[in-house]
């Protein structure tokens, strides 16, 4: 029998709940920052590979994959910006987050930043980005593949 302390076993329920992925490294930090509007979304080639490790039944990403195959342009590996550009974007986003969170603004993924990112929080983005996360059905339907049909 699993150990419990609450009369209604509510402390057990927490152990049965699916656990959110913790932010442990720069990649998951980048996902966090893009999710909440601090930087543009991580590119989907990498995201697709990464998400396959996390969740095989993600309908949402399946839809995105479908939209990509139907003509959404995805930068080729050769077109990637130099790593320094990516690091600059991540550093700037980290600084932004640290500033808003009242943390020392280091631009580095330090312990304080990791702890802040792993705190319970609201799912509404902190910042609005132009094309970030707007995967509404209407947009999916507006691609050239639909016109061809």
């Amino acid at each position, binding site marked *: 029998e699993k150990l419990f302390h609450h009369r209604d076993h*509510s402390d057990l329920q927490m152990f049965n709940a699916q656990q959110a992925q913790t932010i442990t490294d720069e990649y998951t930090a980048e996902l966090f920052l893009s999710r909440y509007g601090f930087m543009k979304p991580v590119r989907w080639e990498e995201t697709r590979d990464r998400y396959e490790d996390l969740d095989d039944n993600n309908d949402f990403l399946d839809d995105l994959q479908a939209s990509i195959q139907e003509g959404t342009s995805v930068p080729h590996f050769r077109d990637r910006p130099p790593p320094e550009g990516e690091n600059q974007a991540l550093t700037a986003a980290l600084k932004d987050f640290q500033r808003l969170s009242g943390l020392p603004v280091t631009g580095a993924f330090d312990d304080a930043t990791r702890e802040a990112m792993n705190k*319970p929080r609201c799912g509404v983005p902190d910042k609005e980005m132009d094309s970030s996360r707007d995967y509404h059905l209407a947009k999916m339907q507006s691609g050239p593949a639909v016109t061809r049909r």
Partner: protein
Amino acid sequence: KRHLAALVTKRRRHRRDLGEAGHVAFSKNVLRWRLMGEGYSNQLSIEEQRYIFRLAFRMWSEVSPLQFMEDNGSPLEDIDIRLGFGTGRHLGCNQRFDGSGQEFAHAWFLGDIHFDDDEHFTAPNTGSGISLLKVAVHEIGHVLGLPHIYRPGSIMQPSYLPQEAAFEMGWMDRKAIQNLYGACKGRFSTVFDWIRRERSPYGQVVVRFNTYFMREGWYWLYENRNNRTRYGDPVPLRIGWRGLPADGVDAYVHVWSLKRDDVYFFKGTQFWKYDSDNDKVFGQDPEGHRYPRKISEGFPGISGPIDTAVYDRRDSCIYFFKNTLVYAFSVESNGVAPGFPKAIQKAFPPVSGGDHPGGNIDVAYFSYAHNAVFLFKGRRFWQVVSGRDRRRRPFLPRNGLLPHKEVDRHWFDICDVHPTALTL
């Protein structure tokens, strides 16, 4: 489900409008909400969930002109804000929940709020877990149009902080929502400072006052030192003022002198005497008078209904305001003072030009906090020139009315709630 959501999206877009500051906001003041039947939490009873949401909506009502009513009967398309719990892929939403930890809820721009049921939500004042009340208040803020606010103490901070013992809406959050929807405005039936005696811990008798605003059958206690009403107000009149008419009063008068200490409430053609020591109206006072009594019997020469009244200690007169006239009733001689009634504009002349309420005054209020008399009409008030004002500026007329100001810029956040939310 996504297709249906898209259809609903297009329809709901029409309900939004530009708010006071040019931001998108709801264009109506009464909003309907519902906890979706398919979205109940597994952690709290349904009644607990609904109670917490009623309280969360009421907290926003107490600081804004918005009112919220729970609606479990109307067609779904008439519901402005829908709430529900879910885990992972949930409720037709395209933003998946992440399990226990991190994201605990989100709100959609068009009025839906989703809570991650993998989180350990708890009722208010429960030691552990995430306070559902605090999260609900935060997410409702988003639905109403507020973004995250990165200031300590704001309910709109993105990260969850364990609930403090006294979780209430601070000044910053109040002003943020009022920036979208405006401040709370409206007429009052009466405003007064109620004096009462208490014993200090050392046995001394001390005299204290509290400020009350009344509107029809409700009242608010106003905390002058905090520039807001008491948390949880308004309260039905019948709860705080036993024996008074449930639909409100016209005037309050406190006759306070060396010989007398009597509190009266007036409504229509009648008046009641209030027993401040026992906090209820007299059925029969020590002099043998039964209440309610006719105004004309207790105050010869005065007939109800009146608009308002106030006692002036300087000349021991009660000033009764009725239409465009004012009657000075001398409590010493128990009759109308010579020279009265007078036109209000003559007894209380304007200091500048035509800036004057005219007649039909809503409230005449002596404030101990400001040591001044105010006349309210509609959303405005005029301060009566005092003796101290005339000593500094002798050209001011006696009992003159200084230029008007707006009530909501002087006494803040006196907001109605929906009648269904008066008692949760």
